[in-house]
């Protein structure tokens, strides 16, 4: 390798999930379920030499006010299944998906991920998430069986057990933990990557420690440089005590982008996308997530409501007005959030919808391709992250402008690959090979 010593950027492409990011009314916005969309999206990411593509998961349709939420793109395939199909039409791009630890069993998940790893030539990645809610549990055998306080325990044990299963190399195991009592022979030998790449999301103290001990990549929401630098230093600083190198955990914030030929044009494009993403009805729906009650009689083009949110039946109760949406959890103190929104609206003379757009519709990177490339490179070179997970607002072609216009500029800077370095995702992410812990 004759690469310069400059730190390399890692990029992931997030196939848009079930939320208001996707501007489904745009004529360029195609099916979210037909395979052609997944094929085009995956091939676009691979053309751009992205490390991997990513799919989030939701195992129950979201509800608001007791009714299925109908304003956003919805309907999605089974994650590991669609990743496997995309393996057939790509050759290098990594294939990452969320698989829930609460409503799955380790033998099944470990076998599926090992199969995906074999059937993709070493490109599998697993974002381990946890949930406990009875709402989602209503679709599964055991319902809402898992006490809230055990959800992280289960996720941690699920991952530990999966690693033990992979490390048997198709051999015997006998595992007894709080959550699992399993014994037998794991049906798949050690897969090309040893372990699929492990991804963790979440900024909590527990999440940081979990990632530092057990994950290969961490998804964050730190789109601001200074916050990113602090998070990066904190998490990377935890690796040594687990015997890991700084390169062994990649920190990847989620990011959106809107391009334009000039800064003004980009800003105008971003404004239009924001207003498409947050329609008047969507603005009300966002406000209902904070107010925890029906706001259908509120005018989205009028001021932020003067009354306080409903504080009983909070999100942890499972009885919140909005159910099955992760975003509600960011409003830990809805009364304070409502006050903050009111003050912003009064200070700026903004309507409720404009406040919602300001709070929820901001795009991470807005500018000319050169400006966006400069910003991304500065962010990574300043150790605010190792790269980004990019979410386009059009499916399936939304990554194309970035691939065609920004990637070449990152390559010119010497910060991004001009061809894939390896054949496995682990190699392309620059991770250490998996160390197999010996079985007792």
């Amino acid at each position, binding site marked *: 390798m004759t690469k310069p010593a400059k730190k390399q950027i890692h990029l992931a492409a997030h196939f848009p999930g079930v939320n208001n990011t996707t501007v489904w009314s745009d004529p360029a916005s195609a099916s979210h379920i037909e395979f052609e969309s997944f094929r085009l999206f995956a091939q676009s990411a691979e053309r751009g030499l992205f490390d991997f593509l990513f799919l989030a998961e939701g195992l129950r349709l979201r509800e608001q006010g007791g009714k299925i939420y109908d304003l956003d793109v919805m*309907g999605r*395939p089974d994650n590991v299944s669609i990743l496997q199909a995309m393996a057939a039409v790509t050759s290098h791009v990594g294939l990452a998906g969320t698989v829930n630890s609460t409503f799955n069993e380790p033998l099944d998940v470990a076998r599926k991920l090992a199969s995906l790893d074999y059937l993709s030539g070493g490109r599998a990645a697993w974002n381990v998430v946890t949930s406990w809610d009875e709402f989602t549990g*209503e679709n599964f055998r055991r319902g809402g069986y898992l006490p809230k306080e055990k959800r992280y325990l289960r996720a941690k044990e699920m991952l530990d057990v999966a690693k033990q299963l992979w490390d048997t190399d198709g051999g015997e195991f006998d595992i007894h933990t709080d959550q699992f009592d399993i014994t037998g022979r794991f049906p798949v030998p050690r897969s090309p990557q040893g372990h699929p790449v492990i991804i963790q999301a979440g900024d909590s103290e527990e999440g940081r420690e979990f990632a530092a001990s057990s994950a290969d990549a961490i998804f964050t929401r730190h789109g601001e440089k200074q916050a990113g630098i602090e998070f990066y230093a904190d998490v990377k600083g935890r690796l040594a005590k687990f015997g890991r190198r700084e390169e062994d955990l990649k920190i990847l914030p989620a990011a959106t982008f809107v391009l334009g030929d000039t800064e003004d044009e980009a800003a105008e494009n971003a404004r239009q996308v924001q207003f498409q993403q947050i329609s008047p009805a969507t603005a009300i729906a966002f406000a209902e997530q904070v107010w925890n009650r029906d706001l259908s009689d509120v005018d989205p083009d009028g001021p932020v409501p003067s009354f306080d949110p409903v504080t009983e039946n909070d999100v942890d109760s499972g009885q919140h007005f909005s159910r099955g949406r992760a975003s509600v959890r960011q409003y830990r103190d809805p009364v304070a959030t409502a006050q903050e929104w009111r003050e912003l609206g009064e200070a700026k003379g903004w309507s409720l919808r404009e406040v919602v757009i300001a709070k929820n519709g901001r795009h991470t990177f807005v500018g000319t391709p050169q400006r966006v490339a400069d910003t991304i490179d500065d962010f990574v070179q300043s150790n605010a992250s190792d790269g980004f997970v990019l979410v386009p607002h059009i499916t399936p072609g939304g990554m194309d402008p970035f691939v065609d216009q920004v990637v070449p500029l990152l390559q010119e800077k010497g910060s991004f690959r001009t061809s894939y370095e390896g054949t496995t995702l682990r190699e392309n992410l620059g991770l250490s090979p998996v160390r197999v812990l010996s079985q007792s």
Partner: protein
Amino acid sequence: MTFHLAVALNDTGWHPAAPPGDVLEPDFWVSQIQEAERGLATLVTLEDGFARPGLDSVLIALRAGPVTSHIGLVPTVVATHTEPFHVSTQIATLDWVTSGRAGERIKVSADPAEAALFGRRDPASETREGLFEEAADHVEVQRRLWDSWEDDAEIRDAATNRFVDRDKLHYIDFVGSHFAVRGPSITPRPPQGQPIVTALAHVDTAYRLAARCADLVFTTPDGVGRDGPTGDAATTLRGVRSAEAEIGRVGASGATGGGQQPTQVLGDLVVFLDDDATAASTRWTRLDGERTLRSDADVFAGTVEQLATKLEGWAAAGLDGARLRPAVADHDLPRIARDLAPELARRGLTRTAYEADTLRGLLGLEKPADRYAGVQ
């Protein structure tokens, strides 16, 4: 009516002494499935089970989906240890990826070793009847979930900002003795509406399961089941039909509408195919010298012409097709695809070209109406 040629894939073959191969490589599976497609087979099944070494068969089917064009893909699903919600979306995803070529073979597991891999159930406390009941419920949940989005639920109505018409999304509210599932699915209704459900049956309990929930049943004419000999082709067919009569056949392809059709019945057969019958028998004997083949299905060793004649007999007895299990995949699968298939077509038994793009289409089945259409 087309006599259906189906191929059952099982690692490197159904004989336990079949030489090993690269069963962990995608190309191994893709080339076998493409070979079956070359023989214009209606479908290919993939064996599976958690206690059996090898890769997940649903994922093998998904890997092959984008690189095949007509053949039905039927992986195996163990009802006993899986979530019906997950299986439903996995098979629906296979159907979306293949534009309507998905099926599944549902099976139960009474194997204590398999149960120990999950550690959730005590096999000693389970009855065979109970496991079959649960499998029927499992399929019922999958079918309801497939119908839980009406075909035209996605409306993208810019005027009202609505992506879907939620009146066309349906809770399934299934409550059974093993699980309750609320719905709707997270996955829109697959292209076939209802992917094809199949089952292998040797005994009455399994015939009843097939009658309740399957579109297609594989029997073992002149084979051996748990209760002893299964009888000839006509006998197995009678077994299926009497089970259908017994349960009133309302289960398959939707509880309403198309469910009254009888199951299609394909006979299973392990095959050794060679240019002369002696070579085939010798090959069988030689492999049995290494490890003995024990088979639930009858074993045929002979020539393409002899096999074609035997299958003509099955067709005359009323079977809808045959699912052939190549004894040694490398050797017998190409003979099935390149020699037997044209011979069957020449005799007017099987198709000469694919006449449809979906598995339902190949089986002559219409897309069923959605059971929830019009229900508020």
